[in-house]
């Protein structure tokens, strides 16, 4: 038997993450190296070029005692144990493997332990952020792919262009865009997005008014900050979408 330890630092509270992972339905979608499912079994498969291939089908059991979670993978050729324990702002995962080719399989298992904590952390963290932010905050909604997805599926792409925009000139450009193109008046809402060399923006206009601003410069995000639009410039790839019935999206 082989055992290794992995320590992963987390954004969310470790006990919340461990709670999340104790539900097998949460574990299954985020389990790397999954290549099959049948009833209560999951297939994991590790391969490296043509030299190494390991496959087994596992039944997973989750046992939680106090703060400690044990995920037990019972396979036909091997058994894997992941033991999760909270340590301050981190989770320590002990991985035990009992089966063939331990020296290679072990490497993949450490990667799985890392990925499970990382993905669960992300899920717990975004659930918390969702609960804090109100849905009427359009600027922060623009940061969410799920919200933008809904918006765009009910929108029409009317313009796509590449344009060099001088520093500070973005709002002038957008104003001229809106007044130039008669077609824009047909839509009660407009979504304008742009990508520059080091920046990204998503804007939402409702009845001609700028109601949502989301800007990323480098790795910093800005919400509802009109001033920061002056910093966005250079070569921009711009898309403009007309929103046919904004009320449908705003309610959700």
């Amino acid at each position: 038997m082989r055992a290794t330890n992995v320590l992963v630092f987390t954004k969310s509270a470790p006990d919340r993450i461990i709670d999340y992972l104790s539900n097998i339905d949460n574990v299954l979608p985020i389990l790397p190296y999954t290549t099959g499912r049948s009833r209560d079994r999951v297939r994991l498969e590790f391969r490296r070029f043509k030299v190494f291939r390991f496959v087994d089908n596992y039944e997973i059991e989750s046992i939680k005692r106090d703060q400690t979670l044990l995920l037990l993978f019972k396979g036909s050729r091997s058994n894997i144990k992941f033991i999760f324990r909270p340590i301050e702002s981190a989770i320590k995962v002990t991985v035990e493997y009992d089966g063939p080719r331990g020296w290679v399989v072990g490497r993949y298992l450490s990667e799985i332990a890392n990925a499970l904590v990382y993905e669960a952390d992300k899920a717990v963290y975004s659930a918390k952020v969702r609960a804090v932010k109100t849905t009427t905050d359009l600027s922060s909604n623009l940061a969410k792919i799920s919200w933008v997805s809904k918006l765009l599926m009910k929108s029409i792409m009317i313009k796509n262009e590449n344009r060099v925009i001088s520093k500070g000139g973005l709002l002038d450009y957008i104003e001229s865009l809106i007044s130039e193109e008669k077609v824009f008046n047909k839509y009660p809402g407009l979504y304008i997005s742009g990508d520059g060399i080091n920046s990204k923006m998503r804007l939402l206009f409702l009845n001609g008014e700028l109601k949502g601003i989301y800007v990323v410069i480098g790795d910093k995000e800005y919400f509802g900050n009109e001033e920061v639009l002056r910093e966005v410039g250079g070569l921009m790839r711009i898309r403009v979408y007309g929103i046919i019935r904004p009320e449908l999206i705003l309610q959700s």
Partner: protein
Amino acid sequence: MSLRVHKPYILYDNNKHLFVWLGLDEAEAEKGILTNQYLVVDQGEGLLIDPGGYYVFERILENTSKFVDPVKVKALFFSHQDPDVVGSLNLLLDMFPEAIVYVSALWVRFLPHLGVLDTSRLREIPDEGGEITIGKSKLRIIPAHFLHSPGNFHLYDPIAKILFTGDLGAAVFPSDEWYLFVEDFEKHKKYMEAFHHRYLPCRKAIDKWLEMIKDLDIQVIAPQHGAIMEKENVAKFIEWLRSLDKIGLDH
């Protein structure tokens, strides 16, 4: 229990060139009809294959971002015009701002109905196929008309030696089963039969395709639905297609 596998699986990797399966979601209403989406990366540039509909989009974007910057995704390949292939076009055009869309000349004029009035990023693939350059690699667009769509293409990656076959090779799993790689071909062909008898129009379409691919070195067949076939299963699949009768109008 719904079937969601949100982790990608790397099918080929030589450090410069990658071919990745992008995970899986099962919509409640379409039990068993699972769709596969794939990503090719070469020298830091990406191409998405049949990137699909609205409800798979978030996963596609997230998993793609693990391998390539979305701005570096240069191409979207659509094998044909079905909703499970082109459904999220508006989203794709926004989130992959540099990507050019490649689709059959027969279908380009229908795409504006998805709400795309600016067609400057849509490219027609002529009936005879063509090539898409990604990084330093050239992917070959192989004509596969009437399999099942009248304007239909497959995509061959000569580095990974993977042939993406769109709906050809589609399989429908029973509700409690799914696997990514075919292990037992005899069992798997039962999951493919119904689709191929009903959705393909006639035997001749298959014969033309067999002629088209006969000189390709194919190590892996990667379909849009169902499971991936490798090594000896590639030959078994081709043999199975050769033997199929009572297709479409003759069914």
